[in-house]
């Protein structure tokens, strides 16, 4: 025995483009494909031999991923959307098969890709605990034994015999997480389930997760929440475009993810970005932050004015759009969203958006502490009903200390707090 709980070697997964998230095949599609296939075969025999490693219309969501997780280690897998985190988790959970490579797992595996999988709204809390437990792979006797602990954790004692469709959304996720938290397998694969409930319950979830880590069980944890990853894991793997970009201590992994994840340039060209959402009727083409003198910069001092400038292009040359809203959403190094802003907030919908141009968000006095940040960009029309473009984590920038308070005091940014607030102090002695 090698002593590793999880051994991944040369793992790869190829998907067919257009199948993902798109519609399903119909018989007609396959018939017409079959009719074209002989032509393709003949063409490839007569033509040049194909040197492409993968057939056209496919892409590798994961390629050549190898790592080992020793027993008892809590490891975090981080990466941007589309980097392959979920695919990796799905392969390890045996939900989908790899195209290449091999995984060897020693011990009983439990995987939590979602909380509340299989919950049925018509069934009561009690019934759902048993159903969900069975779906997660627990035995009936095991669920019965942990039943009271699950109920106490979820804080739903009074509503046990109420159908969960009458639960508030908070109660629903608490119950769902409680069942999941009591899954006692030697190896646990977890996907972002911490993002549930209110702040108090999130802390409780985090506590439960770190308990699991302390019990000497092996945990592989996939998340966007850097704060959670850093507090739970000792080691981190950064995935980038389906490959392992970094593997090492968690603090360095988070650092690597935040720095290396997004290209940092004064003007970020967004035309080549493939991982984006929306209809594409209008696309963001560039992103830059201008300082108060109008210079594009990668490092902006707090306390000063700056502008977020989003270049765009309308796909159809004759197209014109009304009620367009552009959103800038800024996350700090811990992955926490510190602010977001769009033009509808200030009552300025953009009408007759045509051709190419720029949207500009002016901030008179930047109130964020120094550190690394990422901006997510979002574009919609019809008051947010139709999403045109969505980019996540494609742009990053730095905020440096700019003497926000005008006192010359060295504030030391993120170490103290996330935001900077104007304020004045007074002092008087009471008689």
């Amino acid at each position, binding site marked *: 025995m090698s002593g590793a709980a999880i051994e991944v070697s040369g793992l790869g997964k190829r*998907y067919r483009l257009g*199948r993902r998230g798109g519609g*399903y*095949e*119909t*018989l007609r599609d*396959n018939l017409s494909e079959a009719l074209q296939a002989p032509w393709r075969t003949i063409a490839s025999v007569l033509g040049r031999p194909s040197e492409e490693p993968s057939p056209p219309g496919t892409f590798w969501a994961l390629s050549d991923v190898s790592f080992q997780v020793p027993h008892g280690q809590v490891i975090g897998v981080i990466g941007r959307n589309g980097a392959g985190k979920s695919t990796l988790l*799905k*392969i*390890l*959970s*045996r*939900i*989908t*098969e*790899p*195209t*290449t*490579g*091999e*995984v*060897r*797992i*020693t*011990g*009983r*595996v439990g*995987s939590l*890709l*979602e909380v509340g*999988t*299989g919950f*049925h709204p*018509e*069934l009561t809390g009690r*019934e759902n605990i*048993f*159903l969900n437990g*069975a*779906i*997660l*792979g627990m*035995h*009936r006797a*095991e669920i019965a*034994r*942990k039943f009271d*602990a699950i109920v106490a954790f979820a804080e739903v004692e009074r509503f046990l015999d109420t*159908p969960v469709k009458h639960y508030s959304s908070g109660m629903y996720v608490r119950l769902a997480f409680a069942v999941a938290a*009591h899954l*006692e397998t*030697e190896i646990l694969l977890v996907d972002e389930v911490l993002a549930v409930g209110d702040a108090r319950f999130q802390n409780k979830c985090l506590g439960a997760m770190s308990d699991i880590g302390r*019990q000497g069980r092996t945990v592989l944890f996939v998340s966007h929440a850097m704060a959670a990853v850093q507090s739970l894991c000792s080691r981190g793997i950064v995935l980038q475009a389906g490959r392992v970009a970094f593997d090492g201590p968690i603090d360095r992994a988070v650092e690597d993810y935040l720095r290396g994840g997004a290209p940092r340039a004064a003007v970020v060209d967004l035309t080549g970005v493939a991982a984006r959402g929306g209809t594409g009727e209008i696309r963001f083409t560039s992103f830059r932050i201008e300082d108060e003198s109008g210079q594009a910069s990668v490092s902006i001092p707090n306390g000063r004015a700056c502008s977020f400038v989003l270049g765009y292009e309308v796909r159809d040359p004759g197209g014109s759009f009304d009620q367009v809203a552009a959103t800038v959403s800024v996350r700090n190094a811990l992955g926490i969203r510190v602010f977001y802003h769009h033009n509808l907030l200030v009552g300025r919908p953009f009408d007759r958006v045509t051709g190419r141009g720029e949207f500009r968000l002016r901030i008179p006095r930047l109130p964020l502490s120094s550190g690394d940040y990422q901006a997510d960009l979002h574009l919609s029309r019809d008051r947010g009903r139709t999403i045109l473009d969505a980019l996540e984590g494609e742009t990053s920038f730095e905020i440096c200390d700019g003497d926000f308070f005008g006192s010359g005091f060295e504030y030391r940014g993120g170490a103290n707090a996330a935001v900077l607030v104007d304020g004045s102090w007074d002092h008087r002695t009471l008689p």
Partner: protein
Amino acid sequence: MRPKEPQPIAPSVTVIRPSRGLVSLDLAEIWEYRELLYFLVWRDVKVRYKQTALGAAWAVLQPVLTMLVFSLVFGRLARIPSGGVPYPIFAFAALLPWQLFAHALTDSGNSLIAHQSLVTKVYFPRLILPLSAVLAGLVDFAIASLVLAGMMIHDRIVPGAAILLLPAFVLLALATAFAVGVWLAALNVRYRDVRYTLPFLTQFWLFVTPIAYPSSLVPAAWRPLYGLNPMAGVVEGFRWALLGQGEGVGPMLLVSIVMVILLLVGGVIYFKKTERTFADLV
């Protein structure tokens, strides 16, 4: 403090790699997951009776209403022979296994796409889904059986010793539904056309099965061929076991049994071969 789980002495090793060629059926794994199977059946039954206003009455109403229409149209108007028993009982004895089969077929054929969230989020042997859909129909069947029992008592029809073979015919009906359902469930993941074909298929199948009419209307020489429709064997078996009609265990039934076995083996192999792509396609 939570009690610690007893640690297994030899830790289980799972190897995940791309599968090639023939896949093992791994029926032992289904046995391992029998509790999940139980819970899925239990959920289906529970939800069905909770969600509907009439609850269990549906299990009775459907076959009873169909029987009334059949009695009127085929029994009274078309005067189809019912072999000495009152036509309503003749029809109901056939509708009973038919309803079991038709629901089991439809539900198992749709089982994978109806449980997309499970298929894409949790691992378990996928055969459990069509299997649980088929088994969940047994509760409706049991309730509707009471109606037939009541009708037979009312008309003083006493079944012979052949009734002991009834469970075998129930099993054959379930096996038929499962065999075809497994094919359709796997195809449904790739081609959603299946979902729209299912209602038509069951309707069509109803008329090529001797439900409204006795199979004695089919010339004797052709009857073994008629057995290629396994439901013909099931329905004839029911009438034989309950009402003492027909030949019972004969060439037609044997053809039906062979047919079900072929469909079942083929269906399960096809299902297992395509299983690994379900989560990517569904």
